[in-house]
């Protein structure tokens, strides 16, 4: 008896005296739990505050296999609810682990069913899940997030640090039932929610741009396309659509990347606005100048031709623009000279990124004038031998619309932090590219393109549209020269011409028919007309035409469009462009 008391006494001394700290530490480790509080990712809104992407909590089904008394029965009960194979569930419930996931972020009805089953050792844990309530709208622009809620592409990765926020932590003492012990240890470090992004995108205009583009891709059997809408005064992008036709047929789907910013194309005739703007600005030509334009022109060892044969005609600069004359543009380009052509190409934003900072954005391809070949002075003025992104070309047209002032594009209007404080992004960078007078003259010419020229399909009833068509050959991939029969059709323009509010570009990849005035211009009319209504831009009072093209070329059939085959292996083979009407005899 005495010995027993001695033993007990010694044990008490040992536990309470000598090893007290260790046992206290063990006890605390059993009671005290550190729980990471996930930071909820910021939302992405359109310019009007509508959710494009948001994170909400959803329930994940987790289990402690060591506390599941009957894994077989539990698997049989849970498998149909979770839509999993019973063997898979049983395998997870029989692992020698204290924690397993059975299903991540399940829908609320499924979570409720799991709760009602009340399987011991199985519980629901709230976890954040990213949703796109507008479906795949603008998906190439928004990008995706991974399972760990980090951005993988698009704006999600570009603004990942701001969107992600900071996780928090809570340390509490809990009893065996998981209830917090009153008066026990409690430390809370709340999570910081991620910042929200307010984009410049208008959800409705984006939807219309995608809808119209999809219809055009389907009807023209194109490989894909893109459409961008920009607010002229601010450079804010109201819509940015990238669609591709699935290889196995079916309706066009969202592209896997934001091609409007990442991919380049040779623009073709839409580039003529740069050539003519530069020539007017430098005084090489005047708006009312005329010149005799032949059907073909030789540059170095190549012969460039018009898209439609015609005898030599006396055309004004406006006529050259309205008819998308290759020969006339080359003549103007030669007068301007390669150094000045290069100057204006770069001034209008070609050859460098737009400053959006979008992941994978291309700056385009511009050859140093010192490296131009003999035929480059023939190809570059008509938009071959240079490569630009859709956004770069649109920003160039927007500069003309904006009175000669280039406005850098923008995609994000503001950020909103977790406290609701809104921070507007810095105003877009601006620079004067051409004078307001030159811009006005070019606008007048571009309006004639739509009124009587190659772009009549771009007209929006009640408004004066200024724009340019383009039909450009596609270069071969990994080889010199151009793909036979492969063209990129485009239309770029702005409306209303009197006081531009919007600039729009539409690009179709390998459509049939190939002509920008036939397949891309109608999409412009559809999207621009819709956007004008949404933004409540009233039609201006009726005016006489801003300019008059006297040498109207009647519409040609596609069969009459011709191209001259490659001569030699120069850098820029000949090209065909959008159709125009047969020439009138020279007065």
């Amino acid at each position, binding site marked *: 008896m005495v010995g027993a008391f001695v033993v007990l006494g010694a044990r008490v001394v040992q536990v309470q005296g000598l090893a007290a700290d260790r046992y206290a530490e063990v006890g605390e480790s059993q009671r005290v739990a550190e729980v990471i509080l996930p930071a909820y990712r910021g939302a992405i809104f359109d310019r009007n505050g*509508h*959710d494009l992407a*948001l994170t*909400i*909590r959803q329930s994940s089904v987790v289990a402690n296999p060591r506390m599941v008394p009957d894994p077989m029965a539990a698997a049989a009960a849970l498998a149909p609810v979770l839509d999993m194979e019973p063997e898979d569930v049983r395998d997870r419930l029989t692992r020698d682990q204290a924690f397993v996931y059975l299903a991540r972020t399940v829908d*609320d009805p499924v979570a409720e069913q799991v709760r009602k089953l009340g399987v011991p050792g199985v519980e629901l844990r*709230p976890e954040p899940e990213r*949703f796109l*309530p*507008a*479906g795949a*709208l603008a998906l190439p622009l928004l990008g995706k997030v991974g399972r760990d809620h980090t951005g993988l592409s698009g704006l999600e990765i570009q603004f990942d640090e701001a969107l992600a926020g900071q996780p928090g932590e809570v340390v509490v003492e809990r009893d065996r039932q998981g*209830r*917090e012990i*009153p*008066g026990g240890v409690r430390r809370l470090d709340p999570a910081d929610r991620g910042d929200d992004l307010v984009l410049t995108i208008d*959800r*409705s205009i*984006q*939807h*219309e741009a995608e*809808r119209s583009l999809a219809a055009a891709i389907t009807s023209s059997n194109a490989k894909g396309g893109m459409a961008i809408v920009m607010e002229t005064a601010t450079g804010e992008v109201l819509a940015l659509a990238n669609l591709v036709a699935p290889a196995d047929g079916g309706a066009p789907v969202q592209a896997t990347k934001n091609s409007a910013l990442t991919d380049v194309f040779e623009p073709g005739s839409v580039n003529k606005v740069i050539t003519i703007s530069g020539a007017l600005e430098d005084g090489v030509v005047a708006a009312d100048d005329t010149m005799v334009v032949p059907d073909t022109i030789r540059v170095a060892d190549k012969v460039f031709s018009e898209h439609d044969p015609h005898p030599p005609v006396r055309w004004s600069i406006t006529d050259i623009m309205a008819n998308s004359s290759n020969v006339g543009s080359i003549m103007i380009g030669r007068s301007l000279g390669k150094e000045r052509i290069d100057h204006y190409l770069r001034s209008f934003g070609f050859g460098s990124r737009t400053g959006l900072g979008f992941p994978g954005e291309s700056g385009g391809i511009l050859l140093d004038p010192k490296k131009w070949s003999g035929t480059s002075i023939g190809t570059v003025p008509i938009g071959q031998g240079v490569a630009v992104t859709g956004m770069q070309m649109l920003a160039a047209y927007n500069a003309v619309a904006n009175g000669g002032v280039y406005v850098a594009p923008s995609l994000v209007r503001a950020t909103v932090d977790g406290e609701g404080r809104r921070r507007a992004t810095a105003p877009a960078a601006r620079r004067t590219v051409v004078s307001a007078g030159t811009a006005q003259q070019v606008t007048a010419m571009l309006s004639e393109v739509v009124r009587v020229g190659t772009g009549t399909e771009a007209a929006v*009833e*009640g408004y004066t549209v200024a724009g340019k068509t383009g039909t450009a050959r596609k270069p071969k991939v990994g080889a010199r020269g151009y793909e036979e029969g492969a063209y990129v059709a485009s239309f770029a323009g702005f409306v209303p011409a009197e006081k531009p509010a919007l600039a729009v570009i539409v690009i179709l990849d390998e459509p049939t028919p190939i002509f920008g005035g036939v397949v891309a211009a109608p999409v412009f009319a559809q999207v621009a*007309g819709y956007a004008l*209504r949404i933004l409540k831009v009233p*039609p201006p*009072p*009726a*005016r*006489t035409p801003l300019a008059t093209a006297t040498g109207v070329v009647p519409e040609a059939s596609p069969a009459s469009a011709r191209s001259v085959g490659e001569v030699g292996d120069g850098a820029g083979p000949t090209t065909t462009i959008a159709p125009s009407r047969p020439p009138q005899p020279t007065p």
Partner: protein
Amino acid sequence: MTAPVRARRTAPARPRPRPGPAAGRRPPLHVVPPAPRHRARHPRLLPVAAAMAVAVALLGLVAAHAALARGQFRLQDLERRADAEQARYERLRLDVARLEAPAHIVAVAQQRLGMVPPAAVTYLSPVGPSTASSTAPPVTAGRAEATPGSRDPELASATTRWSDVKRQLGRR
């Protein structure tokens, strides 16, 4: 018989011979009761009171702890309810965003309501009465032609009048 004289406190008095008592009678003698002193009436109350005070204090501690626990549970319950309401708000916000999505609205408009996108949109630009002529041509869609001779080019650019567009207004 006179009472015995009390000795003065200032000096011990030598007892004086008393006049002899009447022969044969002793003065009554009795024990002087002791001076009254203060005594506890309930000698066992102190330990009991002390014990009770300790018990009350302990009960008070228990009550305080119970109140703390109640408060803590209530706080946890409120936190759970706030959390549930926040989760409910998030779900409703997602539902609203989905219902407002353009694709959903278009689908409902077309499939449930039978609406179609307009083939073309026409703008009418009616203006006030023209001073040039009292018989203006009827309103036409699209852009109106300029009327020569009018002072205000914008007004003159349209030949329509409200009375042509809104026939009921022409009766005013």
